[in-house]
């Protein structure tokens, strides 16, 4: 009787040990920690934008023509744009827009890509063949092309921007996950599960997903950045944000006639995009290193 709690104890101890080791790996990865730090600031900025922003109204449609195109000062930390709107406030609000769009694109793509990748990898055969051809078709074109065609027809709105990008994004997950599943499928424990008559769906849910999702998660964190970048690019060429929306790509596009003489109008929104995408890159790259046993 005494052996049972002891066993549970040691299992618990092993679990805490594993978590501690994982935390150690994370802590050791300086770039990942840097990414976490900046990431936390960005998320805070998005969450608390209405309270941090000195002029919250400027992000939603206020116009102060008497204060237009003022250089950075103590009142306007990043200067003002051609409508006299505080660029710092607008950049802060843009964080909300960009983060939610980025998450939206990746989430939709992931929800479509996950089941298709599992099916293609696990069952193989003709269904795999067809899915891969479709994916190849999508992947051989410039990412922005189809969203532009869609946006050109339906008119630019943030919804079109997001859906358009999600439509071209999911094949990446299918392909990546399929590759992982192909490896996992051949593992001894999957064979064992099959040999004792476990149902396919149970094998997929219990074993395949858990053991092949790692690289996909890395890709997800990298893609959050790329999706934000792509979405801002689309907004820049006129598919996405509409005035007076505070969206980074759109802010840059709006400031184009003025930026030669008023550098702050484009510099800060661009830096915001850069910093956000860079942060997700740091996180994704760090995660890859943490999850990859080869680099330990």
């Amino acid at each position, binding site marked *: 009787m005494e052996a049972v709690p002891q066993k549970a104890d040691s299992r618990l101890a092993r679990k805490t040990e594993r978590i501690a080791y994982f935390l150690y790996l994370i802590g050791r990865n300086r770039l990942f920690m840097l990414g976490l730090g900046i990431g936390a600031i960005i998320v805070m900025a998005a969450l608390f934008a209405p309270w941090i922003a000195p002029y919250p109204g400027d992000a939603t449609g206020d116009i102060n023509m008497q204060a237009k195109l003022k250089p950075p000062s103590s009142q306007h930390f990043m200067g003002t744009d051609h409508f006299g709107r505080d660029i710092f406030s607008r950049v802060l609000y843009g964080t909300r827009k960009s983060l939610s769009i980025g998450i939206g694109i990746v989430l939709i793509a992931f929800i479509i890509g996950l089941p298709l990748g599992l099916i293609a990898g696990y069952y193989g055969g003709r269904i795999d063949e067809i899915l891969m051809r479709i994916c190849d078709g999508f992947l051989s074109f410039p990412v*922005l092309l189809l969203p532009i065609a869609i946006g050109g027809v339906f008119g630019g709105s943030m919804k079109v921007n997001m859906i358009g990008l999600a439509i071209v994004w999911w094949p990446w997950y299918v392909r990546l996950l399929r590759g992982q599943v192909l490896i996992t499928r051949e593992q001894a424990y999957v064979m064992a599960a099959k040999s004792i008559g476990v149902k396919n769906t149970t094998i997929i849910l219990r074993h395949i997903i858990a053991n092949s999702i790692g690289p996909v998660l890395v890709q997800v964190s990298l893609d959050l950045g*790329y999706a934000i970048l792509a979405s801002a690019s689309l907004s820049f060429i006129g598919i996405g944000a509409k005035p007076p929306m505070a969206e980074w790509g759109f802010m840059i596009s709006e400031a184009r006639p003025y930026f030669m003489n008023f550098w702050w109008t484009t510099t800060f929104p661009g830096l915001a995009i850069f910093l956000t*995408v860079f942060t997700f*890159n740091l996180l994704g790259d760090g995660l890859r290193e943490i999850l990859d046993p080869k680099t330990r």
Partner: protein
Amino acid sequence: MVVVLWVLTMVTFFLTTIAPSDPAGLWVGPRPKPGQLEKARKQLGLDKPAHVRYVIYLKNLTRGDFGVSIRTRQPVTEELKRYFAATIELVTVAIIISLIIGIPLGIYTAFRRESLADHSGRIFSLMGVAVPIFWLGMMFQLTLSSGLKILPLQGQISSYVFLTSPVKSITGFYLIDSLVTGNWVAFKDIIIHMILPAITLSFASLAFIVRITRSSMIEVMTADYIRTAKAYGLGNKLIRYKYALKNGLIPVVTVTGLSYAYELGGSILVENIFDWPGMGRFLWLSIINNDYPGIMGVTIVFAVICCTINLMVDLVYALIDPKVRIAGT
């Protein structure tokens, strides 16, 4: 490949048919006279059922007819012919730049793993892919063109050079034409105009190329035949640059193909910034004017270019990698 293109025509056609705004309405402009709308509809063939129109559309496409641009009222094919060379020229030069910088950088960091150069190279490439290239282009304009006045702001050629020593059109590619005709004034001017857009565009794939080259070289260096060569006592330089490089650069071929597609997408942004008279700028103008035939025309041409590049990559692969040839794929 043909299937992919065929599906794409379905998509573009489908998009134009379900478009919420009426092309005939756009064609005649606001406040049409009675009867004018019906006439335009007939003229544009919109009175026929969708499947008939699709067949006509496909027939026209195979003849290279993309319809008439609503914005300029010119055949889209004519417009694209004018802009095609400028885009291809820009993207090709950008690819060459990113290969020239990217491959040596990748090799260099691969041989100095975990060194300072390697780490800074990694951070650089993480930063490189995070830069919005449309913003980077504007920053270049702000500092190098407008601030320091070293390089021209935009365009493909200065207007006075264009007037005083015009480039005779042979191939349509400005660089080649001016070189062949010995028009050095124009050649130099074109090169100067090309520097900023090409460098901006090359940023789109530079980091990617560095990364792939590095990991591929590292992998090759652990191969058995390299160990054999080392055991045999061959010099480090010989092993690295003669034996390892050959196999290490194979994935770079794929990456170049992918980069081409990627930079073609980037050209939409960069041509817009630098006022480069190419298809990307035409596409942008079509977008802001709701010009579907223009948008779909560029979409299809871009897709055809990408398919061609992919095909070329496959062929080059078969040529340089005997494994592919034997497998017969």
